[in-house]
């Protein structure tokens, strides 16, 4: 009884005070509360928001673990390219993991610590419970930034993202833009030199730039955008043994996560599938443009336009965006029909921005943020269809 009873007594003591939300957040983390139903259904299903969010986090664990190894592997492989010849043998090593522990883990810890602190402060000020939305956001943020992102920069961005992206709208469930992507966008526009270029994607590449030990930190998309050849095999690209944002590289593990989310009915398969379809369609269009010889090799868009459409799906952040970002139920379309349109446009626009953006050859986060803004509009027209059907039914009757 000990702990349970003591916490219960503390909860009664804090009830009605300013600190109650902060205490409850910790208490309900340990124990499912003793609340009973009143006035509605007397029984309730097992799922709550914590369980839902927790499921998403579980689907991210393999990606996080992989990304910790990959942070080290990309660093070492940039110094000694021969490591790439036997990737599997050289990948799961303590050396690689150590770099993950010193570079990736702090990003996760800072993201959670700062974000949850902001949530607690807002909960106490506004007197509402600490809501679970940030549990997922806090995990997503470290996975979508370059590995060498300074921790202070991340903290500033997280505070901005949580306050401006979410709390000003009223907290979890009320925000218009995906908070994780708001944080990413803030970093991108506030500190562009840290967020783009051919150095930031591999640990230590920035520090070594200009010295005798210089290494490349270029992503595949960066190489394509400059019409350069890419050294990675399709297998590497799919499995994720490539440079990129911390957690975006392994399409394989992301698809595994997607399978888990779809199976548990937490992630929307409609959005995930339609995002890939949209991206493939845009890729096909660009391929057709190249095939029709409308543009030539001299064009600066040639590299990315001629990338086979299926390759667009496994490089860059598309898979990560489709599975973990676009599916955020709060900022996505809420109707099932709307989800198809929403996802398709995300994929479509992602590849378009990726190809046409000269400074930064990736468009997934911009495409998702753009569609976040349009999601309510999509829903509006879907719902209007239902309204029209209802009005027509009445008209047929009176006619």
């Amino acid at each position, binding site marked *: 009884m000990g702990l349970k009873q003591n916490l219960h007594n503390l909860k009664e003591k804090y009830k009605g005070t300013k600190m109650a939300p902060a205490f409850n957040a910790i208490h309900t983390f340990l124990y*499912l*509360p003793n609340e*009973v139903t009143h006035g*509605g259904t*007397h029984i*309730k299903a*097992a*799922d709550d928001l914590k369980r*839902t969010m927790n499921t998403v986090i579980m689907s991210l664990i393999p990606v996080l673990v992989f990304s910790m190894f990959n942070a080290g592997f990309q660093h070492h492989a940039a110094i000694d390219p021969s490591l790439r010849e036997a990737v599997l043998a050289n990948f799961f090593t303590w050396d690689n993991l150590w770099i993950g522990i010193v570079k990736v883990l702090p990003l996760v810890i800072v993201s959670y610590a700062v974000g949850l602190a902001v949530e607690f402060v807002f909960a106490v000020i506004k007197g509402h419970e600490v809501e679970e939305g940030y549990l997922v956001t806090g995990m997503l943020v470290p996975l979508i930034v370059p590995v060498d992102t300074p921790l202070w920069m991340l903290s500033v961005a997280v505070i901005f993202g949580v306050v401006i992206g979410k709390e000003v709208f009223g907290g979890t469930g009320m925000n218009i833009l995906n908070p994780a992507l708001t944080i990413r966008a803030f970093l991108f526009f506030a500190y562009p030199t840290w967020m783009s270029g051919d150095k930031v994607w591999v640990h230590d590449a920035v520090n070594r730039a200009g010295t005798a030990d210089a290494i490349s930190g270029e992503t595949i998309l960066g190489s394509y955008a400059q019409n350069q050849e890419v050294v990675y095999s399709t297998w590497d690209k799919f499995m994720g043994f490539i440079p990129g944002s911390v957690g975006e590289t392994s399409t394989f593990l992301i698809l595994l996560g997607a399978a888990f989310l779809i199976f548990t009915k937490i992630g929307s398969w409609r959005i995930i599938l339609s995002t890939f379809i949209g991206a493939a369609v845009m890729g096909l269009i660009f391929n057709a443009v190249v095939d029709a010889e409308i543009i030539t090799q001299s064009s600066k868009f040639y590299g990315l336009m001629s990338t086979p459409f299926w390759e667009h799906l496994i490089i860059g952040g598309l898979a990560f965006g489709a599975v973990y970002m676009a599916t955020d139920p709060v900022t996505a379309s809420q109707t099932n029909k709307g989800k198809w349109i929403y996802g398709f446009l995300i994929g479509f626009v992602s590849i378009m921005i990726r190809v046409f953006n000269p400074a930064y050859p990736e468009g997934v986060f911009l495409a998702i943020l753009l569609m976040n803004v349009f999601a309510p509009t999509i829903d509006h027209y879907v719902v209007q269809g239902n*309204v029209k059907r209802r009005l027509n039914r009445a008209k047929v009757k009176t006619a």
Partner: protein
Amino acid sequence: MSKDIRIKKGLDIKLVGEAETKTTDVNLSSVYAVKPENFHGITPKLLAKEGAVVNAGQALFYSKSDERILFPSPVSGKVTEIVRGARRKVLAIKIAADKTLAYTDFGIKNPASMSGDEVKSHMFHAGCWPFIKQRPYDVIANPNQTPKAIFISGYATAPLAADLSYTLNGKKEEITTALEALSKLTSGNVHVSVGKREAALFNEISLEKLIVHNVSGPHPAGNVSTHIAEIDPINKGEVVWVIEPTDLVVIGELFLTGKLNLARTVALTGSQFSAPHYVRVISGASIADVVCEAGLNEDNTRIINGNPLTGTETDKEGFLGFYDHQITAIPEGDDYEFFGWNKPVFDKISTSRALTFSWLTPKKKYDLTTNTNGEHRAFVVTGSYEDVFPLDIYPMQLLKAFMYKDLDEMENLGGYEIAPEDFALTEFICVSKQPHQKIIREGLDLMNEELG
């Protein structure tokens, strides 16, 4: 035209404690109570004063909005107490019952030879009108309107619901008479939707305006809104009336015998009864008397007037509600569960598979408690309500419209077609633990007030 209605979206909540098909008679309670709050939206005007002696069937009060709508006493005896709450609101009228009941005689009538108005005034007079509810708004029917059709659901899919083929067994004559009387009240048809078990009973009845439909599928396949949507959806400005099939028996008996007999077969269900079964009691009886033979475990028990989705909370000192045919007793869930939000769950129902495993055992019967399994949150998850909501309505959008009370949207999104009970399943599965039925009830009241 009879229709086959097959419902795919929904969820059967299978619980422990189904009533055994065995009926016992319960002795008369010493005190009966009629509670005006059972009749939603009615402001009572008392007819019987404290100390008055009433017959069974005699009116105790009438509706302030229409004085023809009378509310009858279930038993004969003396009005012992009128319980009042804040602002002298009438909470309950208590009647000490006679040892043998004396009934007011309303006269034997043959509905076949009566006009609609005659049927109506007979039902007013005998206090039968409150049985008839209307859509839109899910309130007692406004007698000044003529419904385009009357709907009766003869298919019970709510958790632990009474088996209608059992409780209606042998009541064919009463039901036929009642259906005949009701068919005089509408310009359209009387639609009865039945499941497999009840089909035999209703298919034997043949009346000019009666249409029997077959329904199958999971809950809410038994909700009358589901049938209305499939058969003849409600448009703006239209009215339909709905009646519980068990109340047809009371109406039929009134016409056949001239007596208003509010006795009914009530299912005692739920895991807190050691011997769940059916009892024959009169509405308004004290709960303690109704449940006395079912072996109620009183330790930390929630007693519910009705089913666990739509019923109202009561206790042993409470009384059987006017409309209720079921009393459910389930364990209270007022305890903490260590890491209950993330550990695998085998003993609770869920529509997701987020480490919840009820999808592995679709036939298993669960012993659910009243725990909310989480805290109240803003709407976050989308797309889950649609899986258990068969109407052509966007449930989340409608709920939100009902919350911010935009009358145009409430109307356009389907507010006329629903009752709070239609949102019981979405409330059950709601990850954000929002009070859907309350939101809908308050919204419908607002619509009724503003759009009437």
